[in-house]
């Protein structure tokens, strides 16, 4: 079999598995945990598309997530708009933020982009507190409407958006666009000498990354039916980066696997109560020490080369 056909087969199997899990373990609680894990998958894949491929680390992905989630909250709670509108407006607002941060900083070399993303998300977190009249402050916005009434149906909607995002990002990453992004990671000056408008590709990739992260933020908001300042938190950005590393950077599907794996790990360690963070951190350190390329993507490449 050719490598692309094995990849498609693997993707279909993974999709079928994710679709089947709630049919076997059907508790509302499990489905809820899985829905959140899928949202993390969307965030990790979108982070990986820009930062994993170009190597320009984004330390404030929560900026796009929070922007998308709060857009959903405002539209829904303050203006009473149909929750479906959230899925249209959230990506647009997130893209607006990506342009504001990316346009001035991605034309520069150095750490400016990473720092601007980090401080951008921190500033937004503080603004939600300062303008608590509109944002609800620490309590956030409550009482969002569900998009779909059934928890199971909403899980499948989230899964559909995740699958569509991964397919879109993978197709882009495997196209000439992806070749250029990986070249930017290699050396920007050489890339310019090859006649490539490096700034354009970086900003456009960040916009795509932001749109999908913002969509994930809105999906998350309409699952929780609540948005809070935590969605702008730096720890959320860091957790996403860890998921990308565990999954395998630059592969798009690896980070999705990393997100699901680490969410499942967090849940399964719930019984350990206060020791949970210790064990979680230990497992992470072991994975990253022994598998610096990550777990999911290298594993899949092995399976693939065994089959082809």
């Amino acid at each position, binding site marked *: 079999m050719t490598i692309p056909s094995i990849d498609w087969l693997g993707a279909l199997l993974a999709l079928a598995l994710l679709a089947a899990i709630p049919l076997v373990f059907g508790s509302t609680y499990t489905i809820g945990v899985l829905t959140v894990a899928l949202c993390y998958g969307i965030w990790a894949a979108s982070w990986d598309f820009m930062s994993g491929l170009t190597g320009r680390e984004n330390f404030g992905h929560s900026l796009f997530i929070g922007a998308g989630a709060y857009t959903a909250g405002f539209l829904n709670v303050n203006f009473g708009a149909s929750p479906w509108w959230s899925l249209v407006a959230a990506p647009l607002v997130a893209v607006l933020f990506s342009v504001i941060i990316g346009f001035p900083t991605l034309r520069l070399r150095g750490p400016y982009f990473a720092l601007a993303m980090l401080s951008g998300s921190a500033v937004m977190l503080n603004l939600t507190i300062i303008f608590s009249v509109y944002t609800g402050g620490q309590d956030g916005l409550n009482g969002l409407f569900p998009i779909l009434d059934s928890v199971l149906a909403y899980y499948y909607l989230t899964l559909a958006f995740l699958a569509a995002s991964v397919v879109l990002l993978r197709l882009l990453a495997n196209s000439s666009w992806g070749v*250029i992004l*990986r070249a930017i990671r290699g050396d920007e000056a050489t*890339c310019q000498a090859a006649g*490539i408008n490096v700034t354009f590709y970086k900003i456009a990739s960040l916009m795509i990354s932001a749109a999908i992260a913002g969509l994930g933020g809105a999906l998350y908001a309409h699952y929780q039916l609540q948005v809070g300042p935590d969605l702008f938190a730096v720890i959320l950005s860091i957790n996403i980066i860890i998921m990308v590393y565990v999954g395998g950077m630059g592969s798009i599907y690896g980070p999705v696997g990393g997100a699901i794996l680490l969410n499942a790990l967090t849940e399964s360690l719930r019984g350990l109560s206060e020791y949970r963070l210790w064990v979680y951190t230990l497992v992470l350190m072991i994975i990253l020490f022994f598998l610096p390329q990550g777990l999911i993507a290298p594993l899949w490449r092995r399976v693939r080369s065994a089959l082809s």
Partner: protein
Amino acid sequence: MSALLQVSGLNKHFGGLHAVKNVAFALQPGSITGVLGPNGAGKTTMFNLLTGFIPADSGTVLFDGRSLVGLAPHQIVNCGLARTFQLARPFAGMSAVENVEVACLAPRVRHAGKPRERAHALLGHVGLGDKAELDADVLPYGDLRRLEIARALATNPKLLLLDEPFAGLGASEIGPLAELIRSLHRSEGLTILIIEHKLREFMQLVHDVIAMDFGEVVAVGTPAEIVRHPRVIEAYLGTTPIDLALERDHAGLA
């Protein structure tokens, strides 16, 4: 015949250092011209000014009837002026053919053929056909130079700027590379501007030489004229023993 590249009054300061001082020259289409000068003479800085990697303080650069002043590096490449770097910097983690494919995706040549196929053809052209699938970062130095040239050629340049293509190469690699550059000039009519230190190969390769020192053009002429030029001898060749060595070198190729 009108010049392909017309440079005049080009200046660049780095703080108190006048790195490029009133540089002016013209390149005729189809010529191979060398830039000679000791370290720190401003040769690479001049390349960086011409290719837009560093903005010039003042001066005009007319290429193919069009001003390049103020254009970004990628825009200049898409006008048909390509360069290689003194230190080859391949895209790590990508195969040799992917390295060249990137340049085949430049707007100027995007529709000149299937990028991947063009990249394979270009690698064959520079003698790396059998190394297309190797990771670029494992290639030896000499192959990296060829890869740089293939990448530059991929953008279909009218003028190719080579920054010390022979630096760090062994004697056995220099001859074939010089022959490759010569064949590019012969078969494609490519105009070439080349910075080099390796005198023997350099002087055999070029038609004209622009000699620089302390940021200035101190002499322009044929290789034979340049090696006898008093300003060049004073600035670049220095004391008598080296002077004699060059005479001997030159006699050997005449």
